[in-house]
């Protein structure tokens, strides 16, 4: 927000194009091209029949575009032994995603709220340390977690993977909400206590309604994170609940005969559709949420 405020007057002053601005636009254009090119190749490839792909013109537009590959990827591509397309994985991912996002945000905001009230000396250092822990690679935890879950009688199941995502989302979610709630004046909490509201009432009726921007940020972070997850889903979800990313891997890596590049590309794009949609749809909210967290009061 402050950065934008600083930029605005400058932008107004130099509306006319000068060399520096040409350079800037050229840079933006080239960067955009660099990142868009793979996407372009994926899209055009997915719309070409195999005969056309075999000619090797990677960048050429399809001569006779068709959505056959997309239909095949969705309905009949083989993910291992079954050949029902990637839609199975899509619905598995949705079933994992919705409860995981909801529960991790609920639990994270509640712990963040509780910890924001815990104002001891050195708390900031402690939470800094927690943030560092949040960046330790998952792979380290997998074996111990598998042991713990099998000991607790929870094998591979939908419940297990939801619990796993909630646990791994907890440090980030907790800190996100703690930092936001800690930036609110303590007097707000005191006023609510004088008004007779209890711990959970203050959380539900005063704190959470204020935290809407944080919730949006949390939904974006968790949705993309959980949707893109591969290894946790593979290990904990169980054979019947494998998420879309795992199914995609199976489609791409299990080929009989000729590699169907158009189907691979279509399946990949289908898998990436949700995070893409989230980013396109919520960019504005995302920035607003980050800014709301940064500004006190």
């Amino acid at each position, binding site marked *: 927000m402050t950065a934008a405020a600083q930029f605005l007057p400058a932008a107004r002053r130099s509306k006319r194009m000068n060399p520096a601005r040409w350079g800037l636009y050229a840079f933006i254009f080239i960067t955009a091209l660099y990142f868009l090119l793979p996407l372009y190749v994926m899209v055009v490839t997915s719309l070409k029949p195999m005969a056309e792909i075999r000619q090797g013109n990677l960048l050429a537009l399809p001569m006779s575009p068709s959505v056959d590959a997309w239909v095949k990827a969705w309905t009949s591509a083989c993910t291992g032994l079954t050949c029902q397309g990637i839609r199975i994985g899509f619905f598995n991912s949705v079933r994992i995603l919705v409860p995981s996002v909801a529960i991790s945000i609920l639990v994270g905001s509640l712990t963040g709220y509780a910890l924001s009230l815990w104002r001891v000396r050195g708390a900031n250092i402690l939470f800094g340390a927690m943030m560092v822990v949040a960046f330790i690679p998952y792979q380290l935890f997998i074996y111990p977690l598998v042991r713990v879950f099998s000991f607790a009688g929870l094998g591979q199941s939908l419940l297990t993977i939801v619990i796993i995502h909630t646990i791994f989302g907890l440090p980030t979610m907790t800190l996100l909400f703690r930092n936001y709630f800690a930036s609110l*004046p303590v*007097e707000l909490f*005191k*006023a*609510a206590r*004088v*008004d007779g*509201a209890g711990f959970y*009432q203050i959380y539900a009726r005063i704190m959470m309604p204020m935290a809407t921007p944080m919730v949006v940020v949390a939904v974006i972070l968790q949705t993309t994170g959980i949707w893109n997850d591969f290894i946790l889903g593979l290990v904990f979800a169980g054979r019947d609940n494998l998420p879309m990313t795992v199914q995609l891997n199976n489609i791409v890596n299990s080929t009989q005969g000729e590699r169907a590049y158009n189907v691979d590309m279509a399946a990949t794009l289908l898998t990436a559709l949700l995070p893409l949609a989230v980013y396109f749809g919520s960019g504005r909210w995302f920035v607003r949420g980050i800014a709301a967290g940064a500004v006190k009061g």
Partner: protein
Amino acid sequence: MQKSDVDIRSLQIGFGGLKVLENLNLHIAKSEFLVLLGPSGCGKSTLLNAIAGLIDVKGGEIHIGGRDVTGAEPKDRGIAMVFQSYALYPRMSVRRNMSFGLTVAGTPRDEIERRVGEAAQMLRLTGLLDRRPSELSGGQRQRVAIGRALVRHAGVYLFDEPLSNLDAQLRAELRVEIKRLHARLGATMIYVTHDQIEALTLADRIAVMQGGVIQQLDTPKKIYREPVNRFVASFVGSPAMNFIPGRITRDSGVEFIAGKSRLSLNGYAFCGQPADAPAVLGIRPEHIELTASDDPSSVSARVEMVEPMGADTLIWCRLADGTAFSFRHDADAHVRVGDTLTVRFPADALSLFDETSGQRL
């Protein structure tokens, strides 16, 4: 509306090893307006928060309306509180802000409606009831916060520096409004501030605090006229009281000697027996009088600076021995820098303090 008295008995509050309040006793009568006045860190807000039940006490008891509430939740104490930062719920309308506490308590809807309407009318908020706090000015926000306290029909109203976030003009307006409210409701009010003007204008009694100890508890007039020690004398009053170091002698009647000047203390009400000892003389700027040069108890001083303040003028002078003081004079005084004036310090308007202990003599 019930009115409660507040009785604080040997209250102790500490955070870790730090003692904030120790053995504090204070009784606030029904319908009294008590102001807790002191610099930041003197423990006044801590005391208020303890009365509200928002911080834990280490020892002692708090009684409100004859009931021991030392361990009670804030909502069960029969109090309402107004905060410095307004602390309005940002996502609720003014109406919901004011009614939230009653809703939580399960008050019937028509009763809530009635009380909110009544408070809104009293505070001229009727047209603003459906707005959000972010759509209000600072003064309006604080009025909403006061309204939120009023609807609780509490026995005691607590104010924690409610006007400190407002600009000077609004502060004066709202100060009058709070005073009017107290006159109308006759409710018990405890008001924390570091602004001595607020304290003097609002209070029935002021408790001047420093270092967790109540230095003086008395009417505004008494605190202003007869401060019990140098801290109270210097904290209350603006422009500040003048302090002139010297000594008391009893050679020929009781006199105060500062440098070469001698000042008769005939007419000063000593607390005990006057003794020959070093002392500090305190006098408020408005109590110094201009006089004729042949007055035996007068001193002459050179004008160093003149500050016109509208209604009157503050004149900064220096005595021959170098002691500086200020005094207040009519706005139309023809005094210029460099003039020599003859002034008199009336003995009955003085305050004398022990040089080492700072206690009133």
